[in-house]
């Protein structure tokens, strides 16, 4: 059985399942052989209900899952996938932005550089981590560490989980646009393998700033989009209530991105989502990263950079008739 979840932290469409599970846990705690049959019946029911709900999730429901407060964040994966993790702080220019974490660690025996957006658990940590919304100094910390990794020959593993770059006065003053742009430019030329995994929310430019990679992996219920559904609804529909439509129209779920040729692979999540079994989710992520890393390691640095160039070069959809230039 998955861990018992506080119903207050459950999403609307999770609640009937969670309530059923909590009821089961209650019965189990009472014990007694006469309850066995009832427990087994309820367990079957819970599993069936979960299958039903999760087999037809809407794009918006997947957005909600990708933002689930209990969802594993970057450091949860780092803790499960790596040894010898040493976090490295700061951009050496302004300050340490805790909405991005970075550091060195050992992944399956191999030293790697890890970078990821980091959301907080609870209000206090979220304030400190600015809800995973990064300012220029955060992108510049990532840039510093990526350059270092490149110089020392460490593969780079990034974890993407951000609502987007922080839209604030200070961020603009310090060059938010330039900071993101610089990361795209530099990442596109780094000779070391880069694997990006979208573990939650892939929010626009702030996500892409860690996303110019040789491989882009997406968790089954992660999303990745040019703008948040809220932003899209407000600009195109001029109606905040159209978020569900916007989420659907933008084709932002993992299967959508696989089909559009942006994501390379989808990492299946445990039944009910990564937060129901973080251990299993981390195992699946680890397997997927290891597979890609071994494939990428067999290429020469030149071949990798060229393949990365061609990967993004192909993205887009247009028609061309007759001779070009």
């Amino acid at each position: 059985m998955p861990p018992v979840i506080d119903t207050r932290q459950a999403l609307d469409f999770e609640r009937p399942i969670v309530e059923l599970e909590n009821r089961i846990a209650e019965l189990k705690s009472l014990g007694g052989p006469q309850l066995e049959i009832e427990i087994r019946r309820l367990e079957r029911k819970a599993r069936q209900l979960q299958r039903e709900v999760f087999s037809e999730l809407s794009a918006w429901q997947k957005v909600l899952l990708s933002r689930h407060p209990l969802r594993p964040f970057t450091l949860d994966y780092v803790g499960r996938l790596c040894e010898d993790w040493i976090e490295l702080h700061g951009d050496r220019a302004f300050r340490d932005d805790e909405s991005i974490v970075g550091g060195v660690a050992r992944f399956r025996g191999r030293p790697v550089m890890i970078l990821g957006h980091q959301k907080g658990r609870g209000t206090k940590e979220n304030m400190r981590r600015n809800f995973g919304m990064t300012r220029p100094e955060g992108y510049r910390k990532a840039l510093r560490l990526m350059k270092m990794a490149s110089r020392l020959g460490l593969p780079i593993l990034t974890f993407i989980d951000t609502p987007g770059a922080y839209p604030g006065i200070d961020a603009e003053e310090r060059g938010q646009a330039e900071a993101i742009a610089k990361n795209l430019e530099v990442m596109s030329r780094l000779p070391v393998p880069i694997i990006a995994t979208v573990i939650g929310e892939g929010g626009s430019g702030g996500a892409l700033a860690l996303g110019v990679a040789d491989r882009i992996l997406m968790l089954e219920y992660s999303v990745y989009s040019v703008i948040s559904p809220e932003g899209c609804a407000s600009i195109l529909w001029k109606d905040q209530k159209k978020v569900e439509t916007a989420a659907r129209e933008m084709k932002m779920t993992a299967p959508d991105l696989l089909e559009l040729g942006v994501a390379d692979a989808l990492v299946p999540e445990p039944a009910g989502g990564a937060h129901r079994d973080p251990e299993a989710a981390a195992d699946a992520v680890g397997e997927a990263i290891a597979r890609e890393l071994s494939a990428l390691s067999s290429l020469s640095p030149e071949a990798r950079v060229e393949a990365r160039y061609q990967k993004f070069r192909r993205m887009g959809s247009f028609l061309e008739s007759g001779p070009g230039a």
Partner: protein
Amino acid sequence: MAAWWSKQRKKMKPEVAAKTKRSVPSGLFQKCDECGATVPSEQVKEALWCCPQCGHHFVMPTAERIKITVDEGSFVEADVNIQPEDPLEFRDSKRYADRLRSAQKQVGVADAFREGRATLGGRPVSIGFFVFEFMGGSMGSVVGEKITRLFERALADRVPAIILNASGGARMQEGILSLMQMAKTTAALARLKEAGLPYVSVLLHPTTGGVAASFAMLGDVIVAEPKALIGFAGPRVIEQTIRQKLPEGFQRSEFLLQHGMVDAIVSRHDMKDTLSRLVSLLGPEKQRARA
């Protein structure tokens, strides 16, 4: 060329950055957004779409922009056969396919970017212009492809690259593919820079969102027209986030110069000369020797 210019003057309706829209002079008189003067449109046009009273820079038609930027008659447009598609079959209040068709009809171009070869002070460049009149200059697959080709051509020809940016950002109607154009174009730019070739980015009003957060802010030299709105997040989004009014002049060219984000503010009247001199100073060795 003249035909599409007269057509697009009738109506300009940018899809993005609606709030930051500056009107193109139309009719006999034009009211200046800056000083409030009512001035004859003919005079505005003669002053390169600037207010004859206060010098305020209006958004100007792209076709005219091309003419005043490069050596006369030197612009040879490339990739004119690239047409946008509707990869997501996107529909808001209107279908994206219909929005594209009506923008094409109104503006007379296939999408929001025009690029090709030209000369500046006699020196060859690979140059491109955002067409802000076309869906707010938003960047989808066509714009991204053209910018990529502009950089690739600069690399192949070993000439400087120049882009005149005016865009609300990525085009939402092409979803993630629009976001990926940021990576695609910037990767092409990175190769150009690695090859020792210069790139000059010109920021016009407005340059925001995904265009700002990619090649627009990556110029070896970045120049901006006066009072252009330049930034990552739009002012409205920031105001909603921080729940307060933004200070006067925030995210304008002068603000960016002060914060070290652009190299210089250059008036429209001096732009061609400035670009020519930059090309001559920064361009490949053999050109410099010839100059």
